[in-house]
């Protein structure tokens, strides 16, 4: 803190890096004033004390939070017992949220780059200057190159609605989410098979759970992780497929260290056993499954003996698990997975999962453990401010959807392809990139290539709470308030409306995304698309159709609509062309792909090479939380996992520095010699190896697997194959 006082006098020119690293804060952290809105609503006393309900944003699960405020400062966050996702609990990340707000590396003012990109030389700007500059650059790009030359990307946050509004109003078709690095294969497969993006899971009735790499104990979704552990505690059987002995594997009755890339062989053989032995729910199947009669023939070749040659799992084990799974009938659950971007055949893994659930008839009530309904909104429809229709864009999307990837949903996109188009200039050159709370510099495969692509752009603007890696390479950085300092658009869950609301005043000059997008909209001549006077006005317009009063919503943190939506029909139907579960998909056939779930041989490492696996740790979220000091304090040191026997054979010692080399890059990282991984695999947790010197906690900590990942895209779902990169290791 003491060095900041000296730095604040250097208002106009700040070198962020080296000896003056402290400059990122720009000015001293002003003690937060009492959140005016909260006080007006009686949530805070005059002294600034209170308990305010809001919604977490440390991951995308959006748990309900009760924020304890003392003297205008958040001192503790707890799970809201009334929220279905928190049930009174928060994970490590949720508990650490106040440290994100009070991070010493918060960006407190708009910043404009003055040195070269990535050099860390920025100057402080006023909001007017930064917004004017951003708008003028965006207008110039649209005028000179067309709106399509401006790329927009943001991922899975509550303000996404207004982000999409901005890009659609501006007129660009180029929308980059990070979904192709995550769940494209799962969503695309379930859309094609069930007609829904992501089926719900019922753990209340489950007796048999098959998790295919779904590491719920470390990729934590509070209520679902809780439900899984409760089910296991109750005696449900858990079978877990993963090349690593994760914390989820430790809770499983059976851990199967399957060969990477062969999950679909295991699942296809399970389907083979169930349909040839007629163990499934035949009545359900005939009525609701398209392709039911031909399924045994289509699966004939996928015998357990065949699967053993692919997976390394004994045929008898596969057969037994298939029989056990089928015996559990509706009380069986094969989890659809989440980040399923592993191999180019991961789409087939997901198709097989969708089929496996369908053949045992668990996909509908009562007691069905996979819910072919979207659990999210629960029928609540929120309003929106009036606005004109969007301009039509006839430009091709840079990410190849749909002209190269006909089956990838527009809202998912193919992010890595978008990055490649920025670099190659094909089919046209992108000029600008508008990024909101996303970290593509760290998340996209092949970081060197991403940095090259950035070099082709005229203008990059990034909205973030801290100086994340992408902000570090941006031309303008707009500071967003943290989630406990701002309103975001309301959302509905399980038939209720929930609110994220400011609990404390924003640090520095940080502002909400709702405000930033509106300010930019006005400067871009798009004010008609942003018809709200402030955040609360936006929320009131959202609430209009529900009859809910904003003040009471703020008080309780949630409310049920007074105007009840009509009860959904009890009739079972699926939103697919045939109205059935499309185990056989005419859509896939027409696009030139196999209409059946099918085996696609994945590539395998050469002798001397290893599979490089990626995944999560329970203390961090993707590429965003590594600078949080609480999480840093309680995480395990990020290291490269190697099987201890292999390490010994190679003369490598636990804790030593090793060099990992892939076709596109190399990193040096400490070794973890452990029995908890297959001998042919290595593992690095994602999200480490930050380059931004504006992150004093995360900078240079661990290595980034994005430096190593080769870009491989699944032609059907557009998913990036994150486990398909093969690497070598040597002592550094």
């Amino acid at each position, binding site marked *: 803190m003491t060095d900041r006082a000296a730095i604040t006098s250097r208002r106009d020119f700040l070198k962020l890096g080296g000896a003056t690293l402290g400059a990122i804060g720009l000015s001293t952290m002003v003690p937060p004033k009492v959140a005016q809105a909260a006080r007006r609503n009686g949530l805070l006393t005059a002294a600034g004390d209170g308990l305010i309900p809001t919604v977490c944003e440390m991951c995308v699960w959006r748990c309900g939070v009760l924020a304890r405020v003392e003297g205008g400062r958040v001192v*503790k966050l707890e799970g809201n017992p009334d929220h279905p996702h928190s049930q009174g609990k*928060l*994970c490590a990340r949720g508990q650490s949220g106040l*440290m994100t707000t009070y991070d010493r590396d918060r960006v407190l003012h708009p910043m404009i780059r003055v040195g070269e990109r990535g050099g860390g030389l920025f100057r402080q700007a006023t909001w007017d200057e930064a917004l004017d500059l951003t708008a003028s650059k965006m207008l110039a790009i649209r005028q000179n190159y067309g709106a399509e030359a401006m790329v927009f990307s943001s991922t899975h946050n509550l303000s996404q609605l207004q982000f999409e509004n901005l890009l659609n109003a501006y007129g660009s078709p180029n929308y980059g989410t990070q979904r192709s690095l995550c769940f494209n294969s799962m969503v695309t497969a379930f859309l094609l098979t069930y007609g829904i993006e992501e089926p719900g899971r019922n753990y209340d009735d489950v007796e048999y759970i098959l998790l295919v790499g779904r590491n719920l*104990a470390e990729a934590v979704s509070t209520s679902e*992780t809780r439900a899984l552990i409760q089910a296991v505690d109750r005696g449900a059987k858990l079978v877990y497929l993963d090349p690593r002995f994760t914390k989820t594997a430790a809770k499983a009755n059976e851990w199967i260290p399957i060969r990477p890339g062969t999950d679909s062989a295991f699942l296809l053989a399970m389907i083979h056993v169930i349909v040839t032995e007629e163990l499934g729910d035949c009545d359900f199947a005939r009525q609701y499954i398209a392709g039911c009669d031909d399924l045994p023939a289509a699966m004939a070749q996928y015998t357990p003996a065949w699967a053993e040659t692919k997976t390394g799992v004994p045929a008898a084990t596969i057969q037994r698990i298939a029989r056990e799974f089928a015996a559990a009938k509706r009380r069986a659950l094969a989890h659809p997975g989440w980040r399923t971007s592993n191999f180019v055949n991961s789409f087939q893994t997901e198709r097989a999962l969708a089929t496996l659930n369908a053949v045992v008839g668990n996909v509908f009530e009562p007691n069905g453990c996979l819910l072919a309904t979207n659990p999210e909104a629960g029928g609540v429809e929120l309003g929106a401010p009036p606005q004109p229709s969007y301009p039509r864009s006839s430009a091709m999307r840079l990410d190849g959807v749909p002209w190269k990837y006909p089956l990838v949903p527009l809202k998912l996109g193919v992010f890595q392809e978008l990055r490649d188009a920025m670099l190659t200039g094909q089919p046209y050159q992108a000029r600008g990139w508008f990024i909101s709370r996303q970290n593509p510099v760290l998340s996209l495969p092949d970081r060197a290539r991403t940095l090259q692509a950035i070099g082709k752009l005229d203008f990059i603007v990034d909205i973030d709470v801290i100086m994340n890696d992408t902000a570090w390479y941006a031309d303008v950085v707009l500071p967003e308030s943290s989630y406990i300092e701002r309103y975001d658009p309301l959302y509905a869950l399980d038939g209720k409306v929930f609110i994220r609301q400011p609990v404390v005043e924003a640090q520095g000059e940080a502002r909400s995304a709702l405000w930033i997008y509106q300010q930019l909209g006005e400067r871009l001549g798009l004010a008609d698309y942003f018809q709200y006077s402030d955040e609360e006005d936006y929320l009131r317009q959202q609430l209009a159709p529900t009859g809910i009063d904003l003040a009471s919503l703020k008080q309780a943190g949630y409310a049920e609509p007074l105007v009840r939506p009509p009860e959904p029909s009890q009739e079972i139907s699926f939103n697919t062309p045939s109205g059935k579960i499309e185990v056989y998909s005419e859509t896939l056939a027409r696009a030139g792909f196999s209409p059946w779930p099918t085996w696609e041989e994945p590539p395998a490492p050469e002798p001397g090479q290893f599979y490089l696996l990626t995944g999560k740790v*329970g203390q961090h979220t993707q590429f965003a939380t590594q600078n949080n000091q609480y999480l840093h304090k309680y995480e395990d040191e990020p290291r490269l996992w190697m099987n201890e026997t292999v390490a010994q054979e190679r003369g490598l010692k636990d804790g030593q520095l090793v060099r990992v080399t892939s076709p596109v890059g190399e990193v040096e990282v400490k070794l973890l010699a452990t*029995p*908890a991984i297959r001998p042919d695999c290595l593992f690095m947790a994602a999200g480490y190896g930050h380059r931004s010197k504006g992150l004093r906690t995360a900078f240079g900590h661990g290595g980034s697997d994005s430096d190593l990942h080769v870009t491989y895209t699944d032609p059907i779902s557009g998913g990036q194959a994150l486990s398909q990169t093969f690497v070598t290791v040597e002592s550094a």
Partner: protein
Amino acid sequence: MASDQPFAFLFDATRCIDCRACMVACSAENDVPMDDTRIWLSGDGVFGTYPDLERASMPYHCMHCLEPACASACPVGAWTKRDDGPVVYDAARCIGCRYCMNACPFGVPHFDWNKGLLDEPLITKCTMCTQRLDVGQPPACVQTCMTEAFQFGRRDEMLAEARARLAGRPGKYVDHIYGEHENGGTSYLVISHVPFDKLGLPAVPAMPVNATTEAVMAGTIPFALGWAAALTAVAGVVRFRQARMTPPAEVDGQDLPVVELADAIQEDGQ
């Protein structure tokens, strides 16, 4: 229903996923410095030979003994066992001798070297979140535990719950409730699927350390007074002899007090 039983934690290692939410919650709730912690990870982690593996870890913090060794070892009464369970510390009384650290059979209290050397002596450890207990809330670690690996309640109820779980799932757990008897009983009870040493819990006899520490401490003051009496006696004898004896030059005066001192100690019986 009110109970005169102390509060106790029940930790079930089979439910813990090692997510560390309890650790972050503790740090935030108690404003624990970044370089310190009141809960730490304990246990072997992953053990066995690939692919036959198991995992053992637990969040380790103060056991809140029914008869706390730290309190009995403390010469100035800085430690107190509250009736409702927590073993608490009074920094104002502490003289920084760190006897408590040596006395604790679980290795829990630790010295804050940042503050302890230059500022004032400071021993830190889990307080069972007394500030929360006092307003009817469970400790922060318990409150946030999503898998309910931590439960919290009156000790007799927690023991009953632990027994019910052991009886309900034969073969799942090691047939023992750690803390029921260890060191005379603790307010942190643990049940587990792996042997307790795999969780890093020490083998502690049922007899509380206090039986020893209290015996020692009980003898300390008589011992000190005895020494004072003995030395006073020696001094008196010496002075008496010096007064009675011929001038010192004529005798080997160096030996006399030593002999008398040894006799005096023997007579005192210490």
